[in-house]
């Protein structure tokens, strides 16, 4: 193993990676019935542990609240924060933290009843829109509606349960939140009032919510490692390297790019980018966790958010998932 410094050395000495996560957002970070953490964000934590230790289970998850997440990171309680956190200028600039590569491009959406025949925001002129109390959701909504000249009445609840009751009673015509949250709510919509099929999420997106990992900004090498593990998973997705065909790919890499990604010698030399971890680290990541697409399929697709046509598709398919070259 190469010599390490800074955060990486700290993690190695400790023998376990500490990741700050959400524990109550289904699909992204939540506690499964058996008591273990699961979800999209959780798997990126496992990938990082696999890259560092060659063992995805040498990890400790710390459930952090929305308000405590940044201070937990600053205080060194966790090594990295992967908790559906939106990358914004003020957070990046003012908190002595640095944001990594977005793992998921979310955005505020609008959900309506299928039977109402509403197809776009313009159809909502004069409608009542339900939202949860919260800064960006309400602000985005106001900016977007004001821009289109569409009048609306906001109804702001403090609990999802009451909001859902009001929506079921047809007190409001639309329900707004981050699209991933709407999808989770839609998937759990009670059958007695129509089930998920009775609801439609409009194609429009009212805001940009790129969810990205966060590290302290005093250790650029550590930030690079976190980023390149994620980028490696995206590259593997693009190059068609999966946990299924990994061994075959290592045996006979179809291209030099694949060989460099997996640390397979090309003409006798192994590509070493000196990221501080083993040159073969991406093999462990993909074998134990999978590539980006596999992680997405495992956690986000079941919520009813297909990948095709969204920002989270590969750049080749018109999305934003793009890894710089591995060389």
């Amino acid at each position, binding site marked *: 193993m190469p010599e390490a410094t800074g955060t990486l050395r700290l993690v190695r000495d400790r023998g376990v990676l500490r990741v700050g996560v959400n524990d109550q957002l289904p699909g992204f970070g939540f506690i499964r019935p058996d008591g273990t953490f699961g979800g999209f964000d959780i798997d990126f934590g496992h990938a990082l542990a696999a890259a560092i230790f060659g063992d995805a289970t040498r990890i400790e998850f710390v459930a952090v609240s929305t308000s405590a997440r940044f201070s937990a990171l600053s205080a060194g309680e966790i090594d990295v924060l992967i908790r559906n956190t939106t990358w914004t200028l003020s957070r990046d600039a003012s908190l002595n933290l640095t944001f990594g590569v977005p793992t998921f491009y979310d955005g505020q959406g609008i959900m309506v009843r299928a039977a109402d025949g509403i197809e776009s925001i313009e159809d*909502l*002129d*004069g*409608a*009542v829109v*339900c939202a949860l*109390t*919260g*800064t960006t959701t*309400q*602000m985005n*909504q*106001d*900016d977007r509606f*004001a821009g289109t000249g569409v009048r609306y*009445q*906001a*109804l*702001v*609840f*403090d*609990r999802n349960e*009451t*909001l859902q*009751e*009001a929506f079921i*009673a*047809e*007190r409001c*015509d639309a329900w707004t939140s981050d699209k991933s949250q709407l999808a989770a709510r839609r998937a759990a919509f009670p059958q007695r009032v129509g089930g998920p099929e009775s609801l439609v999420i409009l194609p429009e997106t009212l805001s940009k919510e790129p969810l990205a990992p966060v590290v302290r900004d005093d250790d650029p090498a550590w930030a690079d490692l976190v980023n390149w593990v994620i980028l490696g998973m995206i590259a593997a997705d693009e190059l068609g390297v999966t946990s299924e065909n990994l061994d075959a790919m290592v045996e006979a890499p179809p291209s030099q790019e694949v060989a460099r990604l997996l640390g397979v010698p090309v003409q006798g030399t192994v590509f070493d980018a000196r990221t501080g971890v083993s040159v073969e680290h991406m093999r462990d990541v993909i074998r134990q966790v999978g590539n980006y697409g596999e992680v997405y399929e495992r956690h986000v697709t079941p919520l009813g958010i297909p990948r095709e046509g969204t920002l989270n598709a590969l750049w080749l398919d018109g999305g934003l998932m793009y890894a710089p070259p591995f060389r």
Partner: protein
Amino acid sequence: MATIASQTLRVARDLRVRRATFEALTVTITAMFILYLVQQARQASDLDLAFMGDRAGFAVGDQFLTNVDGNDSRWAVYFAGIMNTIGIAVFGTALAILIGLVAGIARLSSNWLAARLAFFFVEAIRNTPLLPFVVFCYTAIVLQLPPIRDSLSIVGVGFASNRAIALPWAQPTDGAGMWALVVFIALAIAIGVFAALRRYEETTGQPSRPWRVSVGLFAAIATGSFFLMGQPLRWDVPEVSRFAYDGGLQLSPEFVGLLLALALFNGAFVAEIVRGAIQSVPRGEREAAAALGFSQWDQMRLVVLPQALRAMLPPLATQCQALVKYSAVAIAIAFPDLMTVGGTLINQSGEAIPLFILMMVTYLILNLVIAIIFTGPQWRRFNLRPRTRRI
């Protein structure tokens, strides 16, 4: 030596010295505690309210006598929240007192059914927490009205659905201001006539019907001038559109739900206050009135209630202040009161500490105003105001 010791003892035993010492101690400790709190708050925030002048960026759905939107300042939006709290407090208090009077008197009634009903109402509500009761009133009662496309008709001119309760409303036209002035003058004349007739009645013993004459006079001037001035108010009848009603007076389900819950909840407590106050009037008073041939109603109205009022006012003031504080549960059912609006402002600006202080100060001012309304010097001439006795 002995004299010095006894001298010290005498000073230590002096009541004035003791009082002064303890008072100084209390003031010092309190001041230090407050200073500590302020210092703590200042560490977390500069307590500057300049951010309240920025554009709000969000609108308030329900508005009571205000008209602000997202382009107004945060102060304007916050003020709309305060007005909503005041609106719910005014109507809530009026309804709660009405419910409390009826239930409180009914509970003492000799009618078995009325007494039992009032008993169950009061006990059921007083032993239930407010938050689930508010959510119940909203989701299980108000939201169960049909959706807007199946609106219930209110005698052909209004509508009820879980979108709103829409009623015809008098819309002022040109000249409404002049007419309002005429009505105001008519009211002043009617009150003057009432007072004069009342005095005449009391001095001469001749019945002169002050109520009928003054009310009739007022009604005649008001309606007469209304038609003479070309009907300055016009009926505005609501109509159904796709998502909402157009025109008329519209009461939102959140307002109705909160009003219902607060009026019933506080009404139960007022009922107990009324019952206690009535029972504090000696039985003999009522028996004497009965012996003089007063009807049941007159015994209550002329003998018992005026005396009960004196015992009733202070706890009633406390209950109304409680109602204002309880109204902060509005956030649970999306009614934009000052707590809800303040919460959104906190989320949006990140200025939690100054806004929480501002909200608490606002509630404090509202409640001090209520205290003055209920127990202020204006009651002294009725000899109702109970004096605070010092102990």
